């Protein structure tokens, strides 16, 4: 996984609550068996005026000029500002893959849905929680001074924008893995013996759980 220490980029303020993962990446793109190529389809239903699919070249489609990420000031944004409960609904990790593929490294919101939040960390995308007051301030900077740049420092746990520094909290283990770009599976397999020991004890105590399917 790509390590994350600091990131500087343009903020895009997506002013909607409860943005679900169906909106972030619609169903038709979930048919792909790859992890890449989802970027052009990020927020697909909002971003284009005509329907798309994996077999349609995005370059041939009609963009919706009103949509935030199609506006010149936000086209190159890499930090997404969002509202409450961002990423709710389906567990599809494709939502994070789409954000990442479209260049986003950071999402800042007052709250996130659990599965989406978790998926971000597996892909080097940093989800930051700030309270409503600070969120409103960031939205204002991102709108008023567009294109406005923010600097995110994971080591210092701060977001700096519009001359103001916003501290944020993050779980120690998530921060550590993100800073180091660690591979969870590799780390877990260091404990393979412990897992085997647990498994054997479980098999002895509750053998019915280990029935062949």
């Amino acid at each position: 996984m790509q390590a994350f220490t600091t990131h500087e980029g343009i903020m895009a303020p997506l002013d909607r609550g409860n943005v679900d993962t169906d909106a972030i990446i619609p169903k038709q793109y979930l048919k792909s068996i790859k992890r890449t190529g989802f970027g052009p389809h990020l927020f697909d239903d909002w971003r284009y005026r005509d329907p798309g699919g994996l077999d349609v070249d995005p370059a041939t489609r009609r963009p919706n000029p009103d949509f935030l990420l199609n506006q010149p000031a936000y086209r190159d944004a890499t930090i997404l500002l969002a509202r409450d409960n961002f990423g709710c609904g389906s567990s599809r990790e494709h939502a994070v893959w789409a954000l990442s593929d479209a260049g986003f490294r950071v999402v800042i919101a007052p709250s996130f849905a659990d599965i989406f939040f978790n998926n971000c960390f597996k892909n080097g995308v940093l989800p930051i929680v700030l309270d409503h007051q600070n969120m409103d301030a960031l939205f204002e900077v991102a709108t008023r001074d567009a294109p406005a740049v923010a600097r995110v420092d994971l080591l210092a746990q701060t977001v700096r924008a519009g001359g103001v520094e916003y501290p944020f909290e993050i779980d120690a283990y998530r921060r550590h893995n993100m800073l180091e770009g660690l591979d969870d599976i590799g780390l877990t397999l260091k404990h393979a013996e412990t897992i085997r020991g647990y498994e054997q004890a479980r098999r002895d105590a509750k053998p019915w759980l280990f029935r062949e399917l």
Partner: protein
Amino acid sequence: MSGRTLYDKIWDEHVVRDNGDGTALIYIDRQMVHEVTSPQAFEGLRLAGRDVWRRSANLAVPDHNVPTIDRLRGIADPISRAQVEALQTNCADFGIRLFAMNDPRQGIVHVIGPEQGATQPGMTIVCGDSHTSTHGAFGALAFGIGTSEVEHALATQTLIQAKAKTMLIRVDGQAGPGVTAKDIMLAIIGKIGTAGGTGHVLEYGGQAIRDLSMEGRMTLCNMSIEAGARAGMIAVDDKTVEYVRGRTYAPEGEHQAEAETYWRTLTSDEGAVFDQTVVLDAAAIRPQVTWGTSPEMVVPVDGAVPDPATCDDATRAESWRHALTYMDLAPGMPITDIHLDKVFLGSCTNARIEDLRAAAAVLKGRRVADNIKLAMVVPGSGLVKLQAEKEGLDQVFIDAGFEWRDAGCSMCLGMNPDQLSPGERCASTSNRNFEGRQGQGGRTHLVSPAMAAAAAVAGHFVDVRDI
């Protein structure tokens, strides 16, 4: 020591290793696998040269992309077909049990797990699908995960988890006639909101929950994610034990009694402390209909579309306005004035045999209204379909003007050809009314199977208790 919650008990039992940083390595007893969220996980295993840790922990089935009609002809869409074929190849390569598309045991992953007895009390169950919470109805800890975690569970039989908070949702008293598990759950979501359960594992309790069948409990736990919770669970009782007993993968012989004795310990202790408790009165719950683009945008069928001007929260009022525009509804409009184009009876929420029976009971001797362009029943599994046919329900549906389809996720999310066209309005027994969920520009109203059937007959929403 104060009592432990059901969640505490299952958590404690599955800790392989405390990581000392607020997380633990948790053992996973069962992983369900489907075609949409697994290909990248198997690819990851291949790239890293890793094998599946314990093959028999996994059960796979294609459900999202499968057609519900003319299935013997295969899948017409080459992209969908490739994804289903990838699942077959991956399962063959890694030695995982797969119920292929034309196997009678095929169906929606969250329907077939319980049906086969692969879902059992006390298990940790994961799947790359947010509706994995369904399996919590059995007193299991079941939650949806992303593809990276699918790969992690395949490779290590564990997940790194931080312990969640707990929320008891107690539904006291008896639900009235015509009020189903779906109505109870929509009422809960209406009360706590789509983010109300974020960070929590929900436990449902109270008289109205104990009264529910296992099918009803699955409906309830299924939509825990629509309340923001990754998992929902219900304590084991006689109904749970009897439902599992005798199923294909259920404990057999000497293990059966042993397992059942253990299962009966899977309840929250007297005096167990929850981080939050929410109480509802079942008698006050009426049949529910969603009007907007989030499951929390819900009112009783005898209510009206709300007015954003009366909403005290500015952000929420704005989302109501967005929703009203998308849904093409006006504030104050009675729910029973909402006319429909399509009716979808299916999904992991409401496509089990009890759901089909409830809808058929309403449809018997009646016809779908002329303004309904399509009414379809998509059973949750091939075995549900066979059972319904044995009971003659298929004929009731067909006589009423419904299409009788094959099992799969179908129009719940429209990854297969079953979709809404732009502007079409649908009464759906599924779980999400998000923009575009059932097809770009489509408008979804979530209801119970009986309410969907009643709406199909009337052509608009009606109170199922009045017919």
